[in-house]
C-alpha cells in the first residue's frame, strides 16, 4: 500500500502539472483559436511587412547601342543618432567613419550627435569597397540603405541631349525629361509576414508584384561623332577665348541628329553642382542674329519666285548704300555683282537690294515663315526656342533690308541648319529628332520616330541651283574657303554678326558661324558651327569654317560617306 503521505505528494504534483499545462493550453487556445480583434490586429501589424521594391530606370543608348545613361544599385550610409548616443559611441563612430570615408570626424560627429533623431544620411552612393570597409567595422547604429542611382558613364559627353534625372529619379532635362514616362518604370510591391526573428517568410507572401523596369531609349546620336564635335568645340573655346560654342550634325534627308554639342558643358553625374549657364543647350535654346547666313534664305526666295537668276546683276553701290535714311555698308567695296557672287562674296548690300527691290517685304515675310523662322521645329528635346521674328505689319522701313542680311531677326542654330538642310534635301524640310525608338524590356517597341516632312519652302529646281551657288562659297575667292574638306565638294555660308547691345550693335563682340552640307552633289549631312564672341579673330570664315572642316573631315570618314558610295555607306553605318 502506498503511504498516505506519498499519495498526497503525488496528487499535489499532478495537480500542479494539470494547472500549469491547463493554463498553457488555455493561453494557447486564447491566442490562436479565439484572440480578440484588437489583439489579432496588433499581432498582424507586428508580423506584417510591406515593402516597395526599387525599380531601375530605363537605359539610354546611342545609335550603336553604347549605353550613355543607366541605373546602378548603390548604398547610402545611414546612421541612427539616437542609438549611437545611447551606446555612447558618438566619438568612436565618427572617427571610424571619417577614416574610411576620408571626411572630417567633427563634421560626422555634428551630424550624428542629435538627440531624438533616428535617421541621418552620412554618405550617398557608396562604392563597394567603402561598403565592405564600413561593414567590417561593425559600428552600432550604422547601416546601409539600398538605392538606385543614375550614372552617366560617358561623363559630359552628350550631356545637353541626355540631360539628367534628379535624386528622386525624375527626369529634369534633355531626353531624361522628354522620355521620362517611358524611362521611369513601375516599382514592385511585397506584402508578407515575418517570423519571431523578423525574417520574412517566403511561404507567407501575400502579394509579390515584380517591379516593371523602365523602357530603354535609343538615340539617333553617335558617341564617336559627338566626341569629334565636342573636341572641335573645346578647341575653339580655348583658341578663341569664346563665351560659348555650339554645333549640330544632321542627316539631310531624314532629320536625324547625329551630334549636338554646346559649350560650356556639365557633368550630369554632378548635376547638383552645375549652373544654368552650363546646363543651357545653346544649339536649340539660344537665339542669336544669324548675320550673313540669312542670305541663303534671301537668295533662295528670290530664285524660287523667278525674280532673279544666278547671273542677274545687282549694283552693290561700291560698299555704301543709303536706304530709308540709313547707311548700309559692305565689308568690301563691290561694284556690280551677280546673284551668284553676291552669295559667294557675301555682299550685304546685294542681298538687301534683292529683298527690298525684288522680293518685297510681304513675300519675304512669307518665305521666312515657310522656312520656319520664328517657329519651333518640334525637336524632341525640352527648351527649344522659336526665335524672334516680328509680324510684317510691325516692320520698320529698313526691316526688310536688315532681316535679309540677318539683323533684326533672331533664330537658333537648329533653325538655321534646318534652312540649309531643306535646300540640300531638294527643298523639303524635315523635322529634326534625337530619339530613334523606345524599347521595353520584353522587346516591344513602344515608340519609334519616323522622318517627317514639315514643309516645302522651295521647289527642287531652286534647291539644285542653290546647292551649286553654295558650293562656290568654299571655292577660291569665297568667304568659306577654310571650310573645304579634302575630296569633297562642300556647300555652305559663313556668318559674322555683331551682337546687339543697348539699342545698337557692339563693335567688338560678334557671333561667328558657318553652316554647310556635303557632299554637294547629294548632301548627306548638314553641319552648323556657331561661336559666341571669339577673340581676337571674329569672322565666320576664320573661326567657324575651320572647325566645320575639322568636324566634317572626320565625320565623313567615320560614317563612311565616300562620294562613290554615299547612300550605301550611310545605310550600312546605321546598322
Amino acid at each position, binding site marked *: 500500500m502506498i503511504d498516505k503521505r506519498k499519495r498526497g505528494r503525488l496528487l499535489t504534483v499532478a495537480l500542479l502539472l494539470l494547472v500549469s499545462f491547463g493554463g498553457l493550453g488555455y493561453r494557447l487556445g486564447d491566442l490562436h483559436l479565439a484572440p480578440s480583434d484588437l489583439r489579432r490586429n496588433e499581432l498582424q501589424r507586428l508580423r506584417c511587412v510591406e515593402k516597395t521594391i526599387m525599380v*531601375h530606370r530605363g537605359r539610354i543608348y546611342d545609335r*550603336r547601342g*553604347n*549605353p*550613355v545613361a*543607366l*541605373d*546602378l*544599385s548603390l548604398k547610402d550610409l545611414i546612421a541612427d543618432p539616437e542609438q549611437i548616443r545611447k551606446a555612447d559611441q558618438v566619438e568612436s563612430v565618427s572617427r571610424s567613419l571619417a577614416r574610411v570615408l576620408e571626411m572630417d570626424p567633427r563634421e560626422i560627429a555634428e551630424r550624428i550627435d542629435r538627440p531624438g533623431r533616428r535617421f541621418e544620411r552620412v554618405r550617398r552612393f557608396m562604392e*563597394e569597397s567603402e561598403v565592405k570597409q564600413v561593414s567590417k567595422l561593425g559600428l552600432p547604429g550604422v547601416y546601409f540603405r539600398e538605392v538606385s542611382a543614375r*550614372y552617366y*558613364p*560617358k*561623363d559630359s*559627353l552628350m550631356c545637353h541631349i541626355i540631360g539628367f534625372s534628379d535624386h528622386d529619379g525624375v527626369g529634369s532635362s534633355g531626353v531624361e525629361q522628354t522620355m521620362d514616362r517611358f524611362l521611369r518604370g513601375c516599382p514592385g510591391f511585397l506584402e508578407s509576414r515575418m517570423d519571431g526573428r523578423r525574417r*520574412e*517568410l*517566403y*511561404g507567407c507572401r501575400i502579394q509579390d508584384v515584380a517591379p516593371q523596369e523602365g523602357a530603354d531609349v535609343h538615340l539617333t546620336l*553617335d*558617341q*564617336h561623332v*559627338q*566626341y569629334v564635335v565636342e573636341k572641335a568645340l573645346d578647341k575653339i573655346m580655348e583658341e578663341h577665348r569664346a563665351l560659348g560654342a555650339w554645333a549640330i550634325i544632321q542627316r539631310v534627308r531624314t532629320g536625324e541628329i547625329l551630334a549636338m554639342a554646346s559649350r560650356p558643358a556639365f557633368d550630369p553625374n554632378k548635376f547638383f553642382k552645375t549652373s544654368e549657364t552650363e546646363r543651357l543647350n545653346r544649339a536649340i535654346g539660344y537665339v542669336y542674329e544669324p548675320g550673313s547666313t540669312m542670305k541663303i534664305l534671301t537668295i533662295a526666295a528670290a530664285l524660287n519666285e523667278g525674280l532673279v537668276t544666278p547671273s542677274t546683276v545687282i549694283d552693290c553701290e561700291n560698299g555704301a548704300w543709303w536706304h530709308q535714311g540709313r547707311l548700309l555698308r559692305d565689308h568690301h567695296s563691290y561694284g556690280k555683282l551677280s546673284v551668284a557672287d553676291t552669295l559667294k562674296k557675301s555682299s550685304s548690300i546685294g542681298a538687301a537690294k534683292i529683298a527690298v527691290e525684288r522680293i518685297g517685304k510681304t513675300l519675304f515675310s512669307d518665305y521666312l515663315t515657310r522656312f520656319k523662322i520664328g517657329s519651333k521645329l518640334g525637336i524632341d528635346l525640352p527648351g527649344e526656342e522659336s526665335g524672334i521674328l516680328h509680324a510684317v505689319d510691325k516692320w520698320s522701313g529698313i526691316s526688310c533690308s536688315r532681316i535679309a542680311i540677318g539683323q533684326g531677326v533672331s533664330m537658333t542654330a537648329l533653325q538655321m541648319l534646318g534652312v540649309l538642310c531643306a535646300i540640300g534635301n531638294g527643298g523639303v524640310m524635315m523635322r529634326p529628332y534625337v530619339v530613334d525608338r523606345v524599347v521595353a524590356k520584353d522587346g516591344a517597341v513602344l515608340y519609334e520616330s519616323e522622318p517627317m516632312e514639315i514643309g516645302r519652302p522651295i521647289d527642287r529646281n531652286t534647291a539644285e541651283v542653290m546647292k551649286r551657288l553654295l558650293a562656290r562659297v568654299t571655292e577660291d575667292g569665297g568667304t568659306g574657303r577654310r571650310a573645304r574638306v*579634302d*575630296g569633297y565638294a562642300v556647300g555652305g555660308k559663313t556668318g559674322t554678326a555683331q551682337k546687339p547691345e543697348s539699342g545698337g550693335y557692339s563693335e567688338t563682340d560678334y557671333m561667328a558661324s558657318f553652316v554647310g552640307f556635303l557632299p554637294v552633289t547629294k548632301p548627306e549631312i548638314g553641319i552648323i558651327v556657331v561661336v559666341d564672341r571669339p577673340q581676337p579673330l571674329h569672322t565666320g570664315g576664320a573661326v567657324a569654317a575651320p572647325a566645320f572642316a575639322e568636324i566634317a573631315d*572626320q565625320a565623313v*570618314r*567615320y*560614317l*563612311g560617306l*565616300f*562620294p*562613290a*558610295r554615299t547612300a*550605301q*555607306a550611310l*545605310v*550600312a*553605318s546605321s546598322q
Partner: protein
Amino acid sequence: MRILRTNRKKKRAAGFMIPLPFAVVMLASVFSLGYLGLEIRCETLGEQLKELEARRKEAHDKRLYEEARWANMKSPGQIEKVLRRHRLTMIWPRQDQIVFVGESEPLDVAP
C-alpha cells in the same frame, strides 16, 4: 466421478490487438509529425529561395556595375587617353586608303 482436466492450452487469438485510443493517438501523432516535417521542409525551401533571390540580386547589381565600368572605359575620351598613354595615334582612313573587296559588299567601317 470423472474429473475433467482444464485445458490449459489456451488458443491464442491470431493478430495483434491495439487498444483503439492508443491507435488514434498514434495515427494523429504520425500525421502531425508528417505535417510538421512538411512545414519545416517548406520553410527550408523558402529560406533557400530567399537566399537565391538575394544572390541573384547581388549578381544583377554586380553586372550593372561592370557594365557601367565597361561603358566608361569604351567612351571615346577614355580610348583616346589610353592611346595617348601608349603613344599611339589612330585616325579614320581616307577614301584613298580603303580597298573595297567586292562591289556588292556593304561598307561597315564603324565599330
